């Protein structure tokens, strides 16, 4: 990791953190709608993975997708407007928090049904793989983000098998936060490490501390290089902590809150600040400027989104079919 990459990583992570915290407050004032699943605590995974992808690389995600969408390049005003259900949103107000799409930046879909987008990422990878046969230099990859809860869904097992069988250029990125909705992983499965599951298929897999954005960056870089080179699929398991409840409004009574001091140590954003300053990638003032710029950008996004009009029934009626 060099200084430029580190600054970019920190900037993306602060933009996600500021965005998510602001969305949490907007949910309490009923300005963003529906089921809101914040990715606070997972910023390092989104930023380190998407920060190494091109616009043409495809990303799919699940219900906790805000960070992935922002990290892939979606503009904050349009993303915020989408959460507010406005016509100026990424999806013209038709998708909302759980169904964010930004085709211009390769963010092709998110779903509210756990595990549902894993096969779609394979389909996109299949299209890329077929283009490889005919196009010199074609090395597009697909990435799909999912939580550890999705690993117990049938689509995961089916997809792992097919991705390996067809040697698809896809990276499966599991954000393992130890909780599937309200229930700890131990109540869902006796398997501790998701990365242990794929060995029989010959899929390259690694587990990394998701709170360490630099470690995620480096591990993903290694896996991505293999997938781009045509070595077949890879799986990255990032161990993270979901700072908020499953969704905003979740009383979160099924687990003990993390102690403030412990979180100060683990928080991926603060941790990258400490690491970056220690390495001389940026100094304290630069880190502070990045943080303040992110918060200002989010405030501007809120202002922009609040002024965006509501979608019309005519728009909704026009979007069911293409012909």
């Amino acid at each position, binding site marked *: 990791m060099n200084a430029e990459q580190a600054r970019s990583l920190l900037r993306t992570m602060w933009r996600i953190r500021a965005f998510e915290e602001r969305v949490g407050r907007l949910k309490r004032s009923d300005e963003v709608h529906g089921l809101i699943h914040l990715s606070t605590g997972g910023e390092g995974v989104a930023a380190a993975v998407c920060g190494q992808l091109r616009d043409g690389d*495809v990303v*799919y995600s699940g219900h906790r997708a805000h960070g992935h969408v922002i990290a892939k390049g979606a503009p904050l005003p349009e993303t915020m407007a989408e959460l507010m259900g406005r016509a100026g*949103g*990424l*999806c*013209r*107000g*038709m*998708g*909302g928090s759980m*169904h964010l*799409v*930004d*085709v211009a930046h390769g963010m*092709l*879909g998110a*779903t*509210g*049904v756990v595990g*549902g*987008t*894993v*096969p*779609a*990422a*394979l*389909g*996109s*990878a*299949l*299209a*890329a793989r*077929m283009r490889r*046969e005919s196009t010199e230099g074609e090395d597009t990859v*697909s990435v799909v983000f999912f939580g550890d809860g999705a690993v117990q869904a*049938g*689509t995961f097992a*089916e*997809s792992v*098998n*097919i991705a390996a*069988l067809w040697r698809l250029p896809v990276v499966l990125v599991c954000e393992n936060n130890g909780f599937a909705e309200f229930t700890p992983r131990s109540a869902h499965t006796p398997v501790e490490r998701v990365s242990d599951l794929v060995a029989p298929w010959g899929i390259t897999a690694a587990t990394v501390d998701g709170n360490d954005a630099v470690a995620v960056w480096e591990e993903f870089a290694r896996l991505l290089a293999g997938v781009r080179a045509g070595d077949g699929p890879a799986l990255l398991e990032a161990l993270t902590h979901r700072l908020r409840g499953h969704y905003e409004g979740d009383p979160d009574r099924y687990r003990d809150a993390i102690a403030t001091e412990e979180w100060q140590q683990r928080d991926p954003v603060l941790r990258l600040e400490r690491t970056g300053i220690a390495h001389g990638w940026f100094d304290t003032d630069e880190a502070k400027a990045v943080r303040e710029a992110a918060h200002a950008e989010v405030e501007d996004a809120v202002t922009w989104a609040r002024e965006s009009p509501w979608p019309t029934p005519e728009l*909704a009626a*026009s*979007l*069911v*079919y*293409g*012909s």
Partner: protein
Amino acid sequence: MRTTYAKAVGRALGEAMRADERVLVIGEDVSAGGPFTITSGLVEEFGADRVRDTPISEAAITGIAIGAAQSGLRPVLEIMYIDFLTLALDQLVNMAAKARFMSGGQLSVPMVLRTQGGAGQRAGAQHSQSLESWLCHVPGLKVVMPSRAVDAAGLLAAAIADPDPVVVVENKTLYFRAEEVPDVVAPAPIGRAAVLRPGRDATVVALSRMVHEALTAADELARDGIEVEVIDPRTLVPLDLDTIADSVARTNHLVVAHEAVGTGGFGAEVAAAVGHAAFDDLDAPVERVAAPFRPIPVSPGLEDAHLPGAAEVRAAVLTVLNRSVR
């Protein structure tokens, strides 16, 4: 040329693949032709990349078709039996059908899902169902259900060219009927019904296999001087209600006939739509011909008794005519 429904579908697939290299066939056993020989011969011409065998993973292969369609390919996915579509419904209903809508028009899913339903082969309640009405309840899907070889080919060609996800529901008992089909089959427009027999006394709207049963019943009734108009909607969503309502305006009597159970069946939708659009034209309540509300039995005598046929259509026509208020 004289051919079969099965061969007409296979030929349409080959023509689409020849015309557009983005078209690929995905499904279980497709390179071997599948249990009904539909895709036989394709792998020899187009190779295993474009005639792609899959594991028995209906959910994943449906999702793969969706992702491939969103990334520039034109997949034709085969789900071997409509009964197995149960395994893929999250993908079809929550992903494919809603992608355009929920992305604000950024995404489209130009995929075709071919499957087949219908009883009559003693295959039992898990390999014989007619589940098309489930699909018709989902905005974003188009549903076609061809009864004749020419439409099986023509609607498939139109479905492959369509920008939306189209489910083609074929029928296993029709695959090996010998039929006359033009050498060059034009795409059949999605959303347009076919009037297969003109008549002045009653309209029968029939789906899939029941179209042929309705035509048989119409022949029999004609011997008694009763002229039945037989309409094959061909497309269930979007439904060509105009053609049906125009017919009812002339015949004043309507029978709807399908092999699915009546409860929640597509016939209920047709009856309600006609009841609204053409209430003043109807001289009698709409009669529905459908299977009884129970799983399909496997024992030959029970299955034969379960399935509606020409006799039930004939009886229903006589019922609407006898109940006529005029």
